[in-house]
């Protein structure tokens, strides 16, 4: 059996993190969580995960900026990032695509869609 893949989940909503962790763990992933952009960045640099799920609207540095910094850092730029947000406007989608986000999921999203995107993009 291959090494367990790690997913870093960055979202300021604890409860959402808790549920999503349950979902992802039941699908066999190891889940780390961070509640803001800075914390997420620090964890990602410290121990790069196989995939990052990143919320867009967070206090402090927002998801788009976090994404930019992840992509600008040699240690994390190879990690695929999926943006997760309740804000489905064209501007954020465009910004996410422009800065190298792999996918953009609008909450509430179908569990199937989320796992699909995770499986498709996670590093092997």
């Amino acid at each position: 059996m291959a090494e367990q893949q790690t997913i870093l989940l960055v979202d300021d909503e604890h409860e959402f993190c808790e549920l999503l962790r349950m979902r992802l763990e039941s699908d066999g992933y190891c889940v780390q969580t961070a509640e803001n952009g800075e914390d997420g960045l620090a964890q990602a640099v410290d121990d790069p995960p196989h995939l990052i799920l990143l919320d867009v609207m967070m206090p402090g540095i927002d998801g788009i900026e976090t994404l930019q910094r992840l992509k600008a850092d040699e240690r994390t730029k190879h990690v695929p990032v999926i943006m997760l947000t309740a804000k489905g406007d064209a501007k954020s989608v465009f910004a996410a695509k422009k800065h190298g986000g792999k996918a953009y999921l609008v909450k509430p999203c179908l569990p199937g869609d989320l796992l699909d995107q995770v499986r498709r993009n996670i590093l092997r």
Partner: protein
Amino acid sequence: MKTEEINTLFVEDSPGDARLIQELLSEEKRGLFRVTRAVTLEETLDKLSNTRFDVVILDLNLPDSAGLETYSKVQKHHPALPVVVLTGYDDQQFATLALQQGAQDYLVKGSVGHGLLVRSLLYAIERKRIEERLRRLNEELEQRVTERTVELTNFVGQLEHEIAVRKRAERTKDEFLSMVSHELRTPLSIAKEGIDLLLDRVPGEINAKQERVLSLAKRNMDRLGRIINNLLNISRMETGRLQMKLETIDFCELIHELHDTFQKRAHEKGIRIQVETEQDSIMIQADRDGIMEVLTNITDNAIKFTQRGGVRLSVEDHLDTLQCIIADTGVGIPSESLPKIFDKFEQFHRDIIRGEKGTGLGLAISRDIIEWHGGSIWVDSEPNKGTTFTFRLPKAPSRPVSRTGGREERQPVK
């Protein structure tokens, strides 16, 4: 009658000339003219300011003033007073100048008889009265034009102000809605994820009764999610801020994508969904997301309301336009509901299938999107036989169609 007496100021410095004219006037037997004489310009102006005269007979050459200047001075102080110039010069050019400056008549001493003098004076009074009336009318008209111009300018200013206020309000509303939608979606997504987890048995097994309760909750959360999306879209549409832009897309590709999206759901429901096109590709200029939303809205309804048979998606290439038909073999729409089907918040199936409620906005949004492209959409339906939605799109919309606020009440329903 005394009241009809014409109060005449006769300005003449030469006593001989004065007598001559006064004799001419006294020949007037009806006693029409009451004549007052003045000798100098100063005296003339003095008398004119103290007494109301009906007409002035004016010699131009006086001890204290000469030539046309004499007339000008009188006219300047009493513009509404008719003046007949009487001089010793018989000079046509001089006469014309005097008339151009407003004198009513120009008479030459020695060539004036009783009849001519009286007629000249009477006509002078009448003509001046008409001139004055015209002048007043003209002034009133100008005054009114000025007033209206001011009103109009104020109105335009008000309008501009209102437009600015409204634009600001729309922007605020848009930001507000975007914020609200975020605030609504976040707790909704958490609640939904919780229910999804339970239904997927991630935390543990559930029994059939529990599953039914959770399914009901889930369905209504999905519905709430759709309502939030549609409200946001409608609001963006109405403020003209749903940004659509034309790009070249392959319509057939879109239809196949649509087919793939809904195939699983149709299969689960035991109905067919099939694509019929004769072409491999039909390239058109359209907003991809907008058209996809229309197709999704209609197909979603078609599958929802079809229990047997299936849904057929077909595309026809008509030179400059394309026609897309989405036909189902579902419950159909009662004929009385057809004319209102594209209106906002119309839920034509409300009572037909329990639990299958939409937001009543999908078709209104669809029509907006199709009309933005310069196309049209209509529906045919027969209860218990099925429903057919048809829309036609120009392949290359000639205009970047600007949306007008109020939609004309056109019902493209056959």
